[in-house]
């Protein structure tokens, strides 16, 4: 479990994070979503004791990171994949972490195997691609078999196979009851990965709920319809809505009608009554990306 209580970080000339409070439970994948410079990394670094909050506190499994006895066995973190000594080999980098945490060398090889770096042990970090560095970072985060994972942009630089592997792996970890906290800009990837979303804008958390809750709250689901006589049908719908004190919910875009309802039966019966045939009907919902964009632009 990760718990942030009024986390705030002010720099001399800016407010990076303002009063961020949230609780992330085990068994869920939480996505941390926000534009560049919105305070995602700062918040993660405050949780990990790398940046001192101006005020507020963060706890992992009820303990501040700095007070954890074996931090890597409680929480695995991946911050910036390029933070490696270029002259050190992939194996040696991970071996160092294993030495520090009294983890046997066999586990190092096991993890390199798991993240797909088997055979690259001797490769110097300077020669490793971004994807390889990212995999190494993931291996390091998993080294202590932690109950909590904090990953900052873990999909950056991964190939499609890697992304799919990571997605399934993280979902699996969550189903084992682990608490997964992932930041990313890839909205479509987040939409299929996360259970909960934590949305941050200018250092302020503006949404914190499950994805289904978010969709229910912000998504305007609608029906996309096309009929044999669109213009007539628009008038019929507008009349109907006018009688029901609402006339702003029908839109004609090209030959497609957007109708703000999620009841296709009602629409079908209305068309039948007026002798119009429906030739196309699709139920549409706002994607996470659209909700995110809406929230960022203040349209929602």
């Amino acid at each position, binding site marked *: 479990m990760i718990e942030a209580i009024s986390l705030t970080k002010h720099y001399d000339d800016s407010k990076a994070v303002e009063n961020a409070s949230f609780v992330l439970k085990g068994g869920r994948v939480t996505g941390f979503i926000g534009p560049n410079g919105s305070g995602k990394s700062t918040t993660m670094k405050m949780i990990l004791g790398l940046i001192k909050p101006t005020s507020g506190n963060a706890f992992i499994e009820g303990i501040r990171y700095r007070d954890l006895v074996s931090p890597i066995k409680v929480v695995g973190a991946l911050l910036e994949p390029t933070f490696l000594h270029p*002259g050190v080999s992939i194996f040696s980098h991970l071996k160092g972490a294993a030495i*520090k945490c009294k983890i046997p060398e066999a586990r190092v090889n096991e993890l390199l195997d798991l993240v797909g770096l088997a055979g690259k042990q001797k490769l110097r970090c300077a020669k490793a691609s971004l994807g390889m560095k990212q995999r190494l970072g993931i291996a390091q985060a998993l080294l202590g078999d932690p109950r909590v994972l904090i990953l900052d942009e873990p999909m950056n630089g991964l190939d499609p196979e890697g992304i799919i592997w990571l997605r399934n792996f993280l979902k699996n970890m969550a189903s084992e009851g682990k608490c997964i906290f992932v930041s990313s800009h890839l909205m479509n990837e987040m939409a299929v990965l996360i259970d909960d979303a934590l949305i941050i804008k200018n250092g302020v958390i503006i949404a914190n709920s499950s994805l289904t809750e978010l969709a229910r709250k912000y998504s305007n689901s609608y029906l996309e319809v096309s009929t044999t006589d669109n213009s007539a049908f628009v008038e019929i719908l507008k009349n109907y809505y006018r009688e029901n004190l609402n006339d702003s919910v029908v839109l004609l875009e090209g030959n497609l009608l957007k109708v703000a309802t999620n009841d296709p039966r009602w629409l079908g019966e209305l068309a039948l009554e007026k002798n119009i045939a429906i030739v196309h009907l699709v139920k549409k919902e706002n994607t996470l990306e659209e909700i995110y964009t809406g929230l960022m632009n203040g349209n929602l």
Partner: protein
Amino acid sequence: MSKDVRAKAVNSVRGEYITACLYELHKIKSTRSSYVSMLFSAIGIVGLSVVVCSIYNARSAHLSLSQLATTDPVFLALSGTLLAQLGVVVFSVLSVANEYGYGTIVTSLLLEPKRIRFAIAKITVVTCVVFFSSLISLSVAFVLGEMILAPKFAVVSVISFVALKAIVGTAFYLSALATICVGLSFVIRRTSGAIASVFAILLVLPPIISLLPSPWNVDIIRYLPSSAGVVLAHSLHLTNEMTPMGSFLLMLLYSLISFAGGLYFIDRRDI
């Protein structure tokens, strides 16, 4: 707290400290720059001593009596220290500044969130590596140097008190220099800045201060680290300089100040 619980707590803290040191040692062992800089030191210590001793041996007939009286065979055999400083400074500055430069400090602090422990482990390992490796090179340089000087000068045996005092004293000087560099690098965090500062103290400050009118120049110069290093490598007493014990305490003081500064800053700053 019962005695047993306390003993366990002490044991676990000691264990954490030891693993922190092993991790630092691993980092030193896995980077090429450590080998290059420490090898440079070793070659500098032995090589320069051999060269200097050979020159003195060849030119001994041309030295005046007063020159002969002030020639210290112990210092000639340990003169490579002057060159070795370069390697020691680069080695110890890089051990910290590279962490900031490459960002590996993030991993280090994630693995060891107790920053004071991290910094103490770093200083312990760097200082010990410098101390023991210089002790070996200095002993080798001393034996070779005295062998070269033996026909013409009154040399002392490597196992004499005078020789051991100078060898251990010089190794201490180099390791104290390493501590100063590590502490300073935790404050400055940039390779270029830290190396420039150390060399300013070692190389630039002495000639500038010597420009001052007498007796200010000698009064100040004797308190510089480089002067302390020269004193510790001598067996003869030097006029205008501090005593070996004074130089030892001076280096200890500089190390402690730099160390304390490093601890203060790493604990207060972000990352």
